[in-house]
Structure formats: C-alpha cells, structure tokens
C-alpha cells in the first residue's frame, strides 16, 4: 500500500466493523457506500475488527434464506468502489490472510489506519 494513495483516496470513508448475518450493520454500511457511489461520490471502504470476516470467501446464504452480504460485495466494482482497505491486525488475529478473501484488498497497519481517517472529509463508522 502506498501511504500517499490513502491520503488522496476520496471523499467518503465507510468503516465496516461487523460480521455478515449477525446484524444489519454490515449491510446498512454497504448500502450507504453504494448509494454514495451511485450519486458519483468517491468511496473508500475500510474493514476493521470483525468486519474483515465480511470478506471471507466461502460464506453462503443463511439457513432461512437470508442472502447475506456476499452478493453486495460482488457488486462493488460495478459501482467503482475499488479501494478496499483492511485492518491487518484484524486479519492476523483471526488467522486470515488476503488470500482467504473474496476481493483484492490493501492491508493497513495502525498508523495507516489513522492516515486513512484523516484523508477523507467524511467518515461513517458502521
């Protein structure tokens, strides 16, 4: 990851900190990202904490047919949301690597997390 590229990364940073299926936080955060992108805003996503599990490749629909968030994640590129930052510590803590994930991501160490927050005029934390 280039430190500079985070600092010029866009207008809106959406932090996703919740797992799929357990609550609507992840979905509602992604909805905010898609709507912002649809209105022409440049959006960066940052997956922190439990949010990194949103990217685990093998996830499925829920037992009652809850579709989960994988279909939404697969639509991000269509909305030109292609800066996906992840909290490296959160991956490490769960024994995950970038290779376990659905989409290409840029892992960040804590000083870079702070730089990402500082670089975006608006930060929404879900």
């Amino acid at each position: 990851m280039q430190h500079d590229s985070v600092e010029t990364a866009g207008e809106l940073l959406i932090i996703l900190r919740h797992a799929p299926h357990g609550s609507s936080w992840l979905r509602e955060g992604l909805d905010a990202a898609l709507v912002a992108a649809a209105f022409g805003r440049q959006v960066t996503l940052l997956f922190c904490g439990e949010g990194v599990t949103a990217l685990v490749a093998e996830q499925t629909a829920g037992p009652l047919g809850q579709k989960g968030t994988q279909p939404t994640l697969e639509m991000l590129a269509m909305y030109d949301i292609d800066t996906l930052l992840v909290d490296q510590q959160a991956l490490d803590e769960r024994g995950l690597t970038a290779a376990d994930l659905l989409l290409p991501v840029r892992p960040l160490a804590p000083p870079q997390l702070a730089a990402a927050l500082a670089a975006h005029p608006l930060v929404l934390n879900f």
Partner: protein
Amino acid sequence: MILHTLNRSPTESRVYRQALAAMGPDDRLLLIEDGVQGALPSLVRHFGELEGRLFALREDLEARGLAGRCAAEVLVVDADGFVALTEEADKTVSWF
C-alpha cells in the same frame, strides 16, 4: 448441567468472560451467530478449559464461510443438535 449460548466474538466483546465465570464444571457452551468466530483456531484459546464442552452451530459457521476453518476441538452441531443440547441440559442461559 446448564447449556450456555454465546452470540458475540471474543475479539469484540468480553462477555465470554462472564459466561465462563458463571459456568459450572459440567456446563456446556454453544457458540451461535457472531459467536461462532470464537471457534477459529486462533481464537479458541479464549475458551481454554472447555474441551469436550465447547460447541458451535454449523448453520452459523457455514453462512459465514467458517465451517472449514473451525478448530478441531470444537464440537459442531446443527439446529437439530442445538435442540438436543437443550433437551440434555436442565436449563439454557443466553449470553449476549
């Protein structure tokens, strides 16, 4: 014997410590919903002493893509097995 359920990951919530402190020596713990993350090999150490008494719900592991990543010492049960655990226990206490 009491069945305890836990729906929070030990990485996010410290309620697992309350559950462990309240568990008797024969009690069982079932990880459900976001709690199944605790079944990952790197996190299962938070439940150290529970070998043979630590369960995780298969449907919730699968929905999160974690079914193939579960630590060997965790006993995986499906919804039918969850019901069976509640039959075997005198009562069920939920931690959230």
